[in-house]
């Protein structure tokens, strides 16, 4: 059977857009993945988005033991954003390996496991345990969650502490190590370099900005935890600036995160130099959003004759 005539012709005029990117040795079919904590363990979103069309899957943050998280209220809506103080509730690394990995194992899409600890030891123990699990294709080290009092906050705001935890975790891992930075610092470049020097293979930024909401009626803070993490479109300008700075501070790839809700938003982060992007809060508002971002990105490239997304990445014009 002959192929329809129009097909090869169309292909010459419209060659497929190359969206694949390389992230510290991990090949992603496109630069779009969920941000930790907004996509469950992947399964939850299977009805809304074909998981095989994503660049990667990033899990909810995992700790050594199951974690209850914070009391409620855990959420507050703010102007173009939201505060969350979930407090890193998760099933723990053993239940993750037992209950969640089997589903993930069926997928082609790379799996990135986000994790954290309450101490250096715990960080190491989780890393060691994750290293034993197949289908953990990369890990993302959360040194930045501002919600847990004994949690990442110390590691995430002090370069020396960050370097120590990165170095210690590094030893246990053969897969790429992504270090996720907090925006609540004076100099993101300093933190990014500290992570790079200690052995990080990539940087992801940003985590949430620390914020508060007030409940006037009750004369109280709205969140049981008092502070929460601000995410969503409200933080995009701050995230873009920090990603721009991080990209220029290190030579390892940077994953851009913060308020991405459309293909245009994602393309903005890539333009300032992010190798890939993570979509967080937008998943909660529109569970099908990542599929739309991937196809919007492809359409954008096609329209501008950008044959390979890598030609767009970092191609910002500056005088």
């Amino acid at each position, binding site marked *: 059977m002959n192929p329809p005539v129009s097909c090869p012709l169309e292909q010459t005029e419209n060659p497929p857009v190359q969206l694949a990117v390389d992230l510290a040795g991990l090949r992603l079919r496109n630069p779009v993945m969920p941000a930790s904590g907004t996509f469950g363990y992947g399964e939850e*979103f299977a009805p809304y988005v074909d998981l095989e069309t994503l660049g990667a899957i990033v899990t909810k943050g995992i700790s050594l033991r199951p974690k209850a998280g914070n009391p409620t209220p855990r*959420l507050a809506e703010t102007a173009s954003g939201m505060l969350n103080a*979930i407090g890193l509730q998760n099933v723990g690394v053993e239940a993750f390996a037992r209950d969640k990995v089997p589903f993930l194992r069926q997928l082609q899409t790379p799996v990135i496991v986000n994790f954290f600890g309450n101490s250096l030891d715990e960080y190491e123990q989780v890393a060691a345990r994750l290293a034993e699990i197949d289908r953990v294709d990369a890990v993302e080290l959360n040194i930045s969650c501002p919600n847990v009092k004994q949690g990442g906050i110390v590691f995430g705001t002090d370069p020396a502490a960050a370097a120590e935890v990165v170095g210690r975790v590094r030893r246990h891992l053969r897969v790429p190590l992504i270090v996720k930075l907090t925006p609540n610092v004076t100099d993101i470049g300093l933190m990014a370099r500290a992570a790079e020097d200690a052995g990080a293979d990539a940087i992801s930024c940003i985590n949430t900005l620390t914020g508060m909401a007030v409940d006037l009626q009750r004369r109280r803070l709205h969140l049981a935890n008092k502070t929460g993490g601000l995410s969503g*479109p409200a933080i995009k300008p701050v995230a873009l600036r920090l990603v721009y700075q991080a990209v220029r501070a290190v030579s390892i790839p940077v994953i851009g995160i913060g308020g991405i809700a459309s293909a245009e938003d994602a393309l903005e982060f890539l333009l300032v130099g992010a190798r890939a992007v993570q979509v967080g*809060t937008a998943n909660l508002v529109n569970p099908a959003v990542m599929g739309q971002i991937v196809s919007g990105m492809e359409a954008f490239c096609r329209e501008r004759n950008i044959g390979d997304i890598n030609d767009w990445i970092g191609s910002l014009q500056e005088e």
Partner: protein
Amino acid sequence: MRDLETTVLYNRPLAGETWQLGLLAPDYDQLARPGQFVMLRLTAGSDPLLRRPFGIFRCRTLPPLCTGQASQPAVELLYKVVGRGTRLLSSLHSGDRVALLGPLGRGFDLTDCAPTALLVAGGIGVAPLYLLAEQLLRQGRQVRLLLGGRRRDDILAVTEFERLGVETYVATDDGSLGEQGLVTQVLERKLGRFPQASVFACGPMAMLRAVERLCRQAAVPLQVSLEALMACGVGACLGCVVPGQAHQEDQPDYRCTCKQGPVFDAQELLWPQEDSQ
């Protein structure tokens, strides 16, 4: 469950601050189970950012007469204007577009329902009980609806239930409709008359607590539909959790209201101790 860009068919005030919203929704009559809810996105902008959860009141087919065109399958919601999102909702016109995610969550479990079902609603809590009543009647149960509210305007949808053939009892705080007092007083009397009833309740937390106490004392099964702050509605954000029956500070047992609820068997949940009230 899926996300549907759809059209407002009608949006009109019902009583007081309560409105009735009809959305074009093919298949909802097939898909929606009693007690399920939807998440509505009200704006293309990002403020307000989050969707709003609303119980599914009923599914109907609008005759051509109403639509001016072909008959249209509609899902109907009842909502009360309480804040920015619901105020914005009340400004929508027929023809405007909204995004409708649903049907979501675990609805009422009808399998072991007793021959007599007592449905207890506080105010706008009546919304998810209509589909329930419809289905219970279809299964041959006797359905009685107990409606409570502060005043007359809080008592909603009585006509709709009576058209189904449901006997309705009303109590208001100020006596402006039905008897004066709390709906739980009515429940207490009914439980005296129907000691084997199954109870289904939706309303403010204070009411649900009182209903739970009564049902526990009377040893009748109770299912409650809860409200919680929600961001996603699909079990991803863990914002909407309630403590399960075994919950302890160091041995957490949190349930997602959006996915494991909004309807729970009362026994699954942790209720505050009597003396802590």
